[in-house]
């Protein structure tokens, strides 16, 4: 191919570094074929090689603008995929947050109903900590791994639902069983919810960053 057209394609390729390698190669392959056809058509009209190349490039437009437009088009597709991922993360996380309490709350209820809240055994407190902190963190991590785009937002929704539901169910449990509340339980409950939210969002962010690093490694 004419050297001017190769230079043109080199400039376009330089603007496509944001694309995965396979997509970048495919774009350049298609542009090369178009330029080759345009060059051949211009030569068939009697133009010199240089003139045919220059006219082909002129009709194509500035390589910088073309590169930006191609990347923008690909990013539009990625944003749409990210939006689908966000809703996927949000729906999955909220479903898990309601499903798990429904499955596990009855077990906690059954094991603690005969105990006075001021006299819970140490394993009960450990279980409560695991339940109130561990489940939101697990939901956040799963959200970040499965849906790396905007996973934290879906997780924050899930954590809010999870914490709210767990707090409501615990309140109902306590009020129905007339258990004596442990000292500073309200403060402890608020701190636990805050910690659960923060750790869940952190887990989602860390897992989504780890997934993104893997994807970037595939692009290189």
């Amino acid at each position, binding site marked *: 191919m004419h050297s001017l057209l190769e230079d043109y394609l080199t400039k376009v390729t330089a603007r496509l570094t944001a694309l995965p390698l396979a997509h970048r190669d495919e774009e350049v392959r298609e542009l090369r*074929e*178009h330029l*080759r056809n345009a060059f051949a058509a211009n030569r068939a009209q009697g133009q010199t090689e240089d003139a045919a190349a220059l006219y082909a490039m002129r*009709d194509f*437009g500035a390589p910088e603008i073309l590169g930006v437009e191609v990347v923008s088009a690909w990013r539009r*597709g990625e944003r749409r995929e990210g939006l689908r991922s966000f809703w996927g993360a949000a729906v999955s996380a909220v479903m898990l947050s309601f499903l798990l309490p429904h499955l596990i709350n009855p077990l906690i209820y059954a094991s603690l109903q005969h105990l006075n809240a001021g006299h819970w055994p140490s394993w009960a407190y450990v279980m409560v900590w695991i339940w109130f902190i561990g489940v939101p963190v697990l939901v956040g991590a799963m959200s970040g791994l499965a849906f790396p785009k905007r996973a934290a937002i879906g997780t924050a929704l899930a954590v809010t639902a999870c914490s709210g539901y767990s707090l409501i169910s615990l309140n109902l449990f306590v009020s129905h069983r007339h258990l004596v509340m442990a000292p500073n339980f309200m403060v402890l409950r608020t701190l636990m919810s805050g910690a659960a939210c923060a750790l869940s969002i952190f887990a989602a962010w860390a897992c989504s960053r780890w997934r993104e690093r893997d994807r970037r490694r595939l692009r290189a």
Partner: protein
Amino acid sequence: MRRELAKGDLPALILAVLAAGPNHGYAIAREVERLSESVLHLREGSLYPALRVLEQDGLIVGTWKPQIKGADRKVYALTEAGTKEAQKRTQELKDYATLIHTMLGRIGHAQPA
């Protein structure tokens, strides 16, 4: 008189050209030029981002086809959704053209006092 093709019209024109049959990028550009009798000038580089968007929307599908002579060529064809969308956008453009024609006719007849 040559005019630059409006960017927003390009996807509709691509769909209309592909409605006639599958084609590759260079041929789509030439067909747009032929249909406009060389009045509309298409910046050919803008064709490929528009094709990519149409692919993402599921309206067209591109397949690399080997050629007897020369390099492989990516040929685009309308999907089922693309065929419906092509008809819809063609009608929208026609309605728009009719509206502009009507408006300009009214401006011509509405003489200031």
